[in-house]
Protein backbone atom coordinates (compact mmCIF):
# COMPACT_ATOMS: atom_id res chain seq x y z
CA UNK A 1 0.00 0.00 0.00
CA UNK A 2 1.41 3.40 -0.97
CA UNK A 3 0.85 6.40 1.22
CA UNK A 4 2.23 9.90 1.56
CA UNK A 5 2.32 12.25 4.48
CA UNK A 6 -0.72 14.48 4.68
CA UNK A 7 -0.08 16.16 8.01
CA UNK A 8 0.96 15.79 11.60
CA UNK A 9 -1.62 16.84 14.14
CA UNK A 10 -0.93 17.87 17.73
CA UNK A 11 -4.09 17.77 19.81
CA UNK A 12 -4.83 19.00 23.31
CA UNK A 13 -7.49 17.23 25.35
CA UNK A 14 -9.70 18.59 28.12
CA UNK A 15 -11.08 16.71 31.14
CA UNK A 16 -13.23 13.80 29.95
CA UNK A 17 -16.86 13.29 30.77
CA UNK A 18 -17.42 9.76 31.99
CA UNK A 19 -20.79 8.65 30.69
CA UNK A 20 -20.31 5.24 32.25
CA UNK A 21 -21.52 1.76 31.41
CA UNK A 22 -23.69 1.66 28.32
CA UNK A 23 -25.00 -1.38 26.40
CA UNK A 24 -21.85 -1.78 24.26
CA UNK A 25 -19.19 -0.95 26.84
CA UNK A 26 -17.97 2.04 28.82
CA UNK A 27 -18.47 5.40 27.21
CA UNK A 28 -16.44 8.54 27.74
CA UNK A 29 -16.39 11.86 25.92
CA UNK A 30 -13.28 14.00 25.77
CA UNK A 31 -13.37 17.60 24.52
CA UNK A 32 -10.50 18.46 22.20
CA UNK A 33 -9.48 21.89 23.34
CA UNK A 34 -7.20 22.88 20.50
CA UNK A 35 -3.97 22.09 18.76
CA UNK A 36 -2.25 22.47 15.46
CA UNK A 37 -1.76 20.57 12.22
CA UNK A 38 1.04 20.88 9.73
CA UNK A 39 1.80 19.18 6.45
CA UNK A 40 3.20 19.89 2.99
CA UNK A 41 -0.20 20.98 1.64
CA UNK A 42 -2.03 22.38 4.66
CA UNK A 43 -1.46 23.77 8.11
CA UNK A 44 -3.45 25.56 10.75
CA UNK A 45 -5.21 25.15 14.06
CA UNK A 46 -7.89 22.95 15.62
CA UNK A 47 -11.00 24.84 16.73
CA UNK A 48 -11.86 23.94 20.32
CA UNK A 49 -15.61 24.34 20.47
CA UNK A 50 -16.49 21.82 17.80
CA UNK A 51 -13.91 19.12 18.36
CA UNK A 52 -14.27 16.10 20.61
CA UNK A 53 -13.57 12.40 20.93
CA UNK A 54 -16.45 10.06 21.70
CA UNK A 55 -14.83 6.95 23.14
CA UNK A 56 -16.24 3.52 23.79
CA UNK A 57 -14.23 0.97 25.75
CA UNK A 58 -15.52 -2.34 24.44
CA UNK A 59 -15.88 -5.50 26.48
CA UNK A 60 -12.98 -7.04 24.53
CA UNK A 61 -10.66 -4.30 25.81
CA UNK A 62 -10.49 -2.36 22.55
CA UNK A 63 -11.04 1.39 22.77
CA UNK A 64 -13.12 2.69 19.87
CA UNK A 65 -12.71 6.37 19.07
CA UNK A 66 -15.13 8.55 17.16
CA UNK A 67 -13.34 11.83 16.60
CA UNK A 68 -14.72 15.05 15.18
CA UNK A 69 -12.61 18.09 14.50
CA UNK A 70 -13.07 21.43 12.86
CA UNK A 71 -9.78 22.60 11.37
CA UNK A 72 -8.98 26.12 10.29
CA UNK A 73 -6.14 26.50 7.82
CA UNK A 74 -3.68 29.38 7.95
CA UNK A 75 -5.48 30.92 4.97
CA UNK A 76 -8.88 30.75 6.63
CA UNK A 77 -10.52 27.64 5.18
CA UNK A 78 -12.65 25.47 7.44
CA UNK A 79 -12.29 21.71 7.16
CA UNK A 80 -14.51 19.20 8.91
CA UNK A 81 -12.60 16.09 9.86
CA UNK A 82 -13.97 12.90 11.37
CA UNK A 83 -12.08 9.76 12.22
CA UNK A 84 -12.87 6.32 13.49
CA UNK A 85 -10.08 4.76 15.49
CA UNK A 86 -9.01 1.78 17.54
CA UNK A 87 -6.58 1.68 20.44
CA UNK A 88 -5.52 -1.46 22.29
CA UNK A 89 -2.44 -3.13 23.68
CA UNK A 90 -0.96 -5.02 26.60
CA UNK A 91 -2.84 -4.17 29.84
CA UNK A 92 0.25 -2.68 31.50
CA UNK A 93 0.85 -0.36 28.54
CA UNK A 94 -2.76 0.80 28.43
CA UNK A 95 -2.67 1.32 32.21
CA UNK A 96 0.46 3.47 31.87
CA UNK A 97 -1.27 5.62 29.25
CA UNK A 98 -4.21 5.94 31.63
CA UNK A 99 -1.86 7.22 34.34
CA UNK A 100 -0.62 9.89 31.94
CA UNK A 101 2.82 8.37 31.45
CA UNK A 102 4.90 8.63 28.30
CA UNK A 103 4.74 5.29 26.46
CA UNK A 104 6.54 4.07 23.35
CA UNK A 105 3.84 4.17 20.63
CA UNK A 106 5.21 1.00 19.04
CA UNK A 107 4.06 -0.99 22.11
CA UNK A 108 0.33 -0.57 21.40
CA UNK A 109 -2.06 -0.26 18.46
CA UNK A 110 -3.46 3.21 17.90
CA UNK A 111 -4.72 3.86 14.39
CA UNK A 112 -7.51 5.97 12.94
CA UNK A 113 -9.12 6.46 9.54
CA UNK A 114 -9.77 10.16 8.97
CA UNK A 115 -12.22 11.58 6.44
CA UNK A 116 -12.49 15.20 5.41
CA UNK A 117 -15.11 17.58 4.11
CA UNK A 118 -14.49 21.10 2.91
CA UNK A 119 -16.11 23.60 0.61
CA UNK A 120 -12.88 25.49 0.00
CA UNK A 121 -11.51 24.97 -3.54
CA UNK A 122 -7.87 25.00 -2.40
CA UNK A 123 -8.52 21.96 -0.23
CA UNK A 124 -11.13 20.06 -2.25
CA UNK A 125 -8.60 17.26 -2.78
CA UNK A 126 -9.36 16.29 0.81
CA UNK A 127 -12.95 15.42 -0.10
CA UNK A 128 -11.76 12.60 -2.36
CA UNK A 129 -9.16 10.77 -0.36
CA UNK A 130 -8.89 7.99 2.18
CA UNK A 131 -6.38 8.49 4.94
CA UNK A 132 -4.78 6.47 7.71
CA UNK A 133 -3.35 7.90 10.91
CA UNK A 134 -0.90 6.51 13.37
CA UNK A 135 -1.43 7.79 16.90
CA UNK A 136 0.97 8.47 19.73
CA UNK A 137 -0.76 9.21 23.06
CA UNK A 138 1.69 11.57 24.73
CA UNK A 139 0.99 12.90 28.25
CA UNK A 140 0.49 16.38 26.76
CA UNK A 141 -2.00 15.08 24.20
CA UNK A 142 -2.20 12.78 21.19
CA UNK A 143 -0.10 13.24 18.10
CA UNK A 144 -1.53 11.89 14.86
CA UNK A 145 0.66 11.28 11.84
CA UNK A 146 -1.84 11.25 8.99
CA UNK A 147 -1.04 9.67 5.65
CA UNK A 148 -3.05 9.87 2.45
CA UNK A 149 -3.70 6.45 0.92
CA UNK A 150 -2.52 6.72 -2.68
Amino acid sequence: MNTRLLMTMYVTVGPPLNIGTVPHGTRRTAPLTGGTFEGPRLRGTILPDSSADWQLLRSDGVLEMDLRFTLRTDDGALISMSAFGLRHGPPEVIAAIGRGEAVDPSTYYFRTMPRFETAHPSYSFLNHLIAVASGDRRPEGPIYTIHEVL
Partner: protein
Amino acid sequence: MSGAIESRPLMVVRLTTSAIQEIGSTSQGRLLVFPVIGGTFDGERLRGQVRAGGGDWVTVHGNGTFTLDLRVTLETDDGSLIHMTFTGIRDDANQYFRTVPRFETAAPKYAFLNRLLAVGIGEIRPDGPVHVIEEIL
Protein backbone atom coordinates in the same frame (compact mmCIF):
# COMPACT_ATOMS: atom_id res chain seq x y z
CA MET B 1 7.46 9.30 16.57
CA SER B 2 6.36 6.64 14.10
CA GLY B 3 6.80 7.53 10.46
CA ALA B 4 5.34 5.71 7.47
CA ILE B 5 2.21 3.62 7.78
CA GLU B 6 2.88 -0.09 7.37
CA SER B 7 0.43 -2.68 6.19
CA ARG B 8 0.25 -6.35 5.28
CA PRO B 9 -2.09 -8.32 3.03
CA LEU B 10 -5.32 -9.45 4.68
CA MET B 11 -7.32 -10.86 1.79
CA VAL B 12 -8.65 -10.39 -1.69
CA VAL B 13 -12.45 -10.21 -1.87
CA ARG B 14 -14.14 -10.95 -5.20
CA LEU B 15 -17.81 -10.03 -5.31
CA THR B 16 -20.53 -11.27 -7.61
CA THR B 17 -23.26 -8.71 -8.09
CA SER B 18 -26.65 -8.88 -9.77
CA ALA B 19 -28.47 -6.18 -11.74
CA ILE B 20 -28.11 -2.69 -10.29
CA GLN B 21 -31.17 -1.30 -8.57
CA GLU B 22 -31.37 2.42 -9.25
CA ILE B 23 -33.11 4.17 -6.39
CA GLY B 24 -32.57 7.52 -8.11
CA SER B 25 -32.00 11.05 -6.89
CA THR B 26 -31.76 11.48 -3.15
CA SER B 27 -30.64 14.33 -0.94
CA GLN B 28 -27.05 13.08 -1.28
CA GLY B 29 -26.94 12.28 -4.99
CA ARG B 30 -28.02 9.42 -7.23
CA LEU B 31 -28.34 6.24 -5.20
CA LEU B 32 -27.60 2.88 -6.79
CA VAL B 33 -27.75 -0.46 -5.01
CA PHE B 34 -25.45 -3.22 -6.19
CA PRO B 35 -26.83 -6.46 -4.71
CA VAL B 36 -24.09 -8.92 -3.73
CA ILE B 37 -25.19 -12.46 -4.51
CA GLY B 38 -21.93 -14.25 -3.80
CA GLY B 39 -18.20 -14.25 -4.20
CA THR B 40 -15.03 -15.43 -2.57
CA PHE B 41 -12.36 -14.15 -0.24
CA ASP B 42 -8.86 -15.47 0.10
CA GLY B 43 -5.91 -14.57 2.31
CA GLU B 44 -3.21 -16.21 4.37
CA ARG B 45 -5.31 -16.12 7.55
CA LEU B 46 -8.84 -16.54 6.21
CA ARG B 47 -10.68 -17.70 3.15
CA GLY B 48 -14.17 -18.72 2.16
CA GLN B 49 -17.34 -17.61 0.43
CA VAL B 50 -19.28 -14.37 0.37
CA ARG B 51 -22.86 -15.16 1.28
CA ALA B 52 -25.73 -13.82 -0.75
CA GLY B 53 -27.81 -11.11 0.82
CA GLY B 54 -25.36 -8.24 0.97
CA GLY B 55 -24.99 -5.16 -1.10
CA ASP B 56 -23.16 -1.98 -1.85
CA TRP B 57 -25.14 1.25 -1.57
CA VAL B 58 -23.41 3.58 -3.98
CA THR B 59 -24.12 7.31 -4.18
CA VAL B 60 -23.08 9.08 -7.37
CA HIS B 61 -22.22 12.70 -6.65
CA GLY B 62 -22.45 15.71 -8.93
CA ASN B 63 -18.67 15.86 -9.36
CA GLY B 64 -18.60 12.31 -10.74
CA THR B 65 -17.25 10.63 -7.64
CA PHE B 66 -18.96 7.70 -5.98
CA THR B 67 -19.20 6.99 -2.28
CA LEU B 68 -19.69 3.40 -1.25
CA ASP B 69 -21.43 1.82 1.70
CA LEU B 70 -21.15 -1.95 1.63
CA ARG B 71 -22.24 -4.69 3.93
CA VAL B 72 -21.77 -8.38 3.33
CA THR B 73 -21.46 -11.59 5.31
CA LEU B 74 -18.38 -13.73 4.85
CA GLU B 75 -18.39 -17.44 5.66
CA THR B 76 -14.96 -18.94 6.25
CA ASP B 77 -14.01 -22.38 4.98
CA ASP B 78 -14.28 -23.62 8.58
CA GLY B 79 -17.81 -22.32 9.04
CA SER B 80 -17.39 -18.99 10.87
CA LEU B 81 -19.47 -15.98 9.92
CA ILE B 82 -17.88 -12.54 9.64
CA HIS B 83 -19.84 -9.33 9.25
CA MET B 84 -17.94 -7.01 6.94
CA THR B 85 -18.77 -3.43 6.08
CA PHE B 86 -16.93 -0.72 4.27
CA THR B 87 -17.28 2.85 3.24
CA GLY B 88 -15.19 4.11 0.39
CA ILE B 89 -14.51 6.51 -2.42
CA ARG B 90 -14.44 5.74 -6.14
CA ASP B 91 -13.20 8.46 -8.46
CA ASP B 92 -12.80 7.00 -11.94
CA ALA B 93 -11.34 10.25 -13.35
CA ASN B 94 -8.33 9.74 -11.10
CA GLN B 95 -8.36 5.93 -10.99
CA TYR B 96 -8.87 6.18 -7.25
CA PHE B 97 -10.94 3.46 -5.63
CA ARG B 98 -10.21 2.99 -1.96
CA THR B 99 -12.26 1.59 0.89
CA VAL B 100 -12.12 1.36 4.67
CA PRO B 101 -13.36 -2.08 5.71
CA ARG B 102 -14.41 -3.11 9.20
CA PHE B 103 -15.13 -6.53 10.56
CA GLU B 104 -17.15 -8.07 13.35
CA THR B 105 -17.08 -11.69 14.32
CA ALA B 106 -17.85 -13.84 17.33
CA ALA B 107 -15.45 -16.61 16.26
CA PRO B 108 -12.40 -16.63 18.57
CA LYS B 109 -10.14 -17.75 15.71
CA TYR B 110 -10.98 -14.62 13.76
CA ALA B 111 -11.27 -12.18 16.69
CA PHE B 112 -8.15 -10.40 15.41
CA LEU B 113 -10.46 -8.90 12.77
CA ASN B 114 -12.38 -7.06 15.50
CA ARG B 115 -9.19 -5.25 16.50
CA LEU B 116 -7.74 -4.01 13.24
CA LEU B 117 -8.17 -1.21 10.77
CA ALA B 118 -7.83 -1.94 7.09
CA VAL B 119 -7.71 -0.29 3.68
CA GLY B 120 -8.99 -1.79 0.44
CA ILE B 121 -7.93 -1.06 -3.10
CA GLY B 122 -10.86 -1.65 -5.40
CA GLU B 123 -11.08 -2.51 -9.04
CA ILE B 124 -14.05 -3.15 -11.31
CA ARG B 125 -13.43 -6.22 -13.45
CA PRO B 126 -15.73 -7.74 -16.08
CA ASP B 127 -16.74 -10.51 -13.68
CA GLY B 128 -17.33 -8.15 -10.75
CA PRO B 129 -15.60 -5.91 -8.24
CA VAL B 130 -12.37 -7.04 -6.61
CA HIS B 131 -11.06 -5.54 -3.37
CA VAL B 132 -7.47 -6.09 -2.28
CA ILE B 133 -7.55 -5.52 1.48
CA GLU B 134 -4.54 -4.70 3.61
CA GLU B 135 -4.39 -4.69 7.38
CA ILE B 136 -3.00 -1.46 8.83
CA LEU B 137 -0.15 -2.44 11.15
